[in-house]
């Protein structure tokens, strides 16, 4: 199966009969478009490699006082991945629930408007999310964090002292809201693709609605849902402005989600420090960008692979 974001099936283009002008022009344009994006991607990769390379051997002042580039980038990478994973923990179940509500549970009219509302979330600029997180959400969740620190400190995630609400957990929540529309939109479309006959067959066999969804919709939509997750994860990994504004970026490696000392993320760190960076510090920041590029690439690749593997079954 395919998601609706993919182009129509290739059999629409007959390969041997393209003698007409229109056909050759159009195929030329399409090929050029495809090549352009490949060139852009290659250009970005080459730029990151060339500009980031000097940082590999950098020490001291060039890597902001750390011993070497690994010591500098590793905590940032840790924070990036932690924030993204937290975001997915919040966003994934919520997105699937919303998508199911829209596709199978809500009355059609309500579902349409709910769909619009979720899509609108994607149109909100990340700076606005950042402001909201910093001014509204962080003070709002602080009492909860204090409570968690007081009563749940037997878990390593909730260690006092809790002094502020701008932690990686808050950043994860904001990222979850930002990733939600992408995941929901794709899941919704995929759920709607479930063949009507399958669903009706399940219902005819006496399945309840939940059983019908479990037996027909989920297996059919599995690879699409995973693709959606990967796209959402990509968004969460690369988000810059919102994290820079919400997170109290400290660069610590910790699994304490609510404490005073918090990790930073690669993208947020670049946003915070690029403006004042000069000379070899720029190389260091670009190198961290290269690391993020590779990680995002790997995530997308893994997503594609999982999605493709699931396709065989359906």
């Amino acid at each position, binding site marked *: 199966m395919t998601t609706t974001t993919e182009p129509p099936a290739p059999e629409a283009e007959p390969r041997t009969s393209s003698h007409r002008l229109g056909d050759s022009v159009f195929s030329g344009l399409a090929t050029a478009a495809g090549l352009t994006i490949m060139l852009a991607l290659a250009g970005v990769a080459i730029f990151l490699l060339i500009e980031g390379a000097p940082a590999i051997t950098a020490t001291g002042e060039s890597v902001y006082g750390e011993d070497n580039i690994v010591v500098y980038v590793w905590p940032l990478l840790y924070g990036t991945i932690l924030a993204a994973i937290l975001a997915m923990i919040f966003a994934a179940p919520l997105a699937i629930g919303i998508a199911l509500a829209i596709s199978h549970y809500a009355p059609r009219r309500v579902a349409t408007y709910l769909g619009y509302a979720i899509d609108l979330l994607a149109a909100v600029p990340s700076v606005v999310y950042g402001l909201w997180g910093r001014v509204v959400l*962080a003070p709002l969740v602080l009492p909860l964090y204090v409570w968690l620190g007081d009563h749940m400190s037997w878990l390593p995630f909730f260690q006092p002292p809790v*002094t*502020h609400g701008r932690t990686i957990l808050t950043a994860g929540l904001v990222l979850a809201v930002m990733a939600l529309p992408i995941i929901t939109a794709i899941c919704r479309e995929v759920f709607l693709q479930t063949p009507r006959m399958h669903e009706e067959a399940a219902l005819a066999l006496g399945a309840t609605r939940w059983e019908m969804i479990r037996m027909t919709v989920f297996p059919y939509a599995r690879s699409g849902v995973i693709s959606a997750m990967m796209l959402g994860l990509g968004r969460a990994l690369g988000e810059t402005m919102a994290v820079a504004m919400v997170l109290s970026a400290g660069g610590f490696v910790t699994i304490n989600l609510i404490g*005073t000392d918090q990790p930073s993320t690669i993208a947020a760190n670049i946003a915070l*420090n690029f*403006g004042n960076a*000069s000379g070899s510090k720029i190389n260091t920041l670009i190198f961290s960008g290269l690391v993020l590029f590779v990680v995002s690439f790997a995530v997308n690749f893994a997503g594609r692979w999982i999605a493709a593997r699931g396709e065989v079954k359906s």
Partner: protein
Amino acid sequence: MPLSSREAIPLKLTHLRRALVPGLAALTLVLTACGSDDDGDTGSGSGSDDTASLSGTLAAGGASSQQAAQEAWIAGFTAVAPDVTVTYDPIGSGGGRENFISAAFPFAGSDSYLTDDEGELTAATERCGGEAPIELPNYVSPIAVIFNIDGVDELNLSPDTLAGIFAGKITKWDDKAIAADNPDAKLPSAPIDAVHRSDESGTTGNFTNYLSTVASDAWDAGEIEIWPKSYGGQGAQGTSGVVDAVKGGTNSIGYADASQAGGLGVANIGVGDEFVGPTAEAAAKILEVSPEAEGATDTALIFDLDYNTTESGTYPIVLTSYLLACQSYSGDEAEAGELTKAYLGYIVSEDGQAFGAEEAGSAPLSADLSEKVQGIIDGITIE
């Protein structure tokens, strides 16, 4: 041309103009009174008696700390001399000095004065035709220690306590050191949420320079622009981020440009036996009590801020920024020199300083210093 420059200024010009019309008259008088030596043959046709008749483009830049004030001054100056386009590129102090030395900028703003540590003073002297460059303090801005503590409206902090809080060594508001500074306040037994800049920042640089000078025991990281990780605390992006974090936090404290403190409690800092708040007057006073730096001359009014001062009524945590210019401009630079002289004259004039204070929260120069600075600018010659 003037139209495009107006678009670039994010201020309501009509409003500005209304405020500046009285200022215009006064300024023209000042310039008429003391500007008779620049009547060279390349000068503007009507001589120096009328700033309004100047025209041309003046492109300079430098310290980003001055940006807000420069924008205000440009708006004010454009209202006085509508045919002049002034731009100030906030590329940073280092970039400003570099471009001044290479003569790309007729003048520059810099948070530090010229020294010969890297040969900049010599290079600048060369650039100015062998005459020592002019260095004038034009922008003094207090850095306030802002706080948000339940039930506490007034907070006094001695330098050691302040350093202890930001270094993460004092972690509770009812710590003995804080209580000793504030015998009457009801301090909560809550953890301190100390907020610092998470981006590289000149404000952090000035703040830590102060801390390392007055409390080197408690603050041993020296003067740094990126917060040391080991000192912990909450990091926030930019001045607005710190202000938001302090506002949104409970029992929080941070440092920010005083003009941005908006509604938050502002701590009084221990100076000698008293505690002083970051008022403009108290901040401007630091230049009066500070000794002139090594290398200060009649045209280089440079200071080494005396953070350890015990002078009453002085607020020590300030950011100072300088203007760099030449004593004389000739040849190709004559026109730019003419505009520089007029523009710098406006900046340090009473109106300019008052306007900067209003729009950017800087501390106006004291009358004494202002007079000296004005005298030096009047001495700029155009050949």
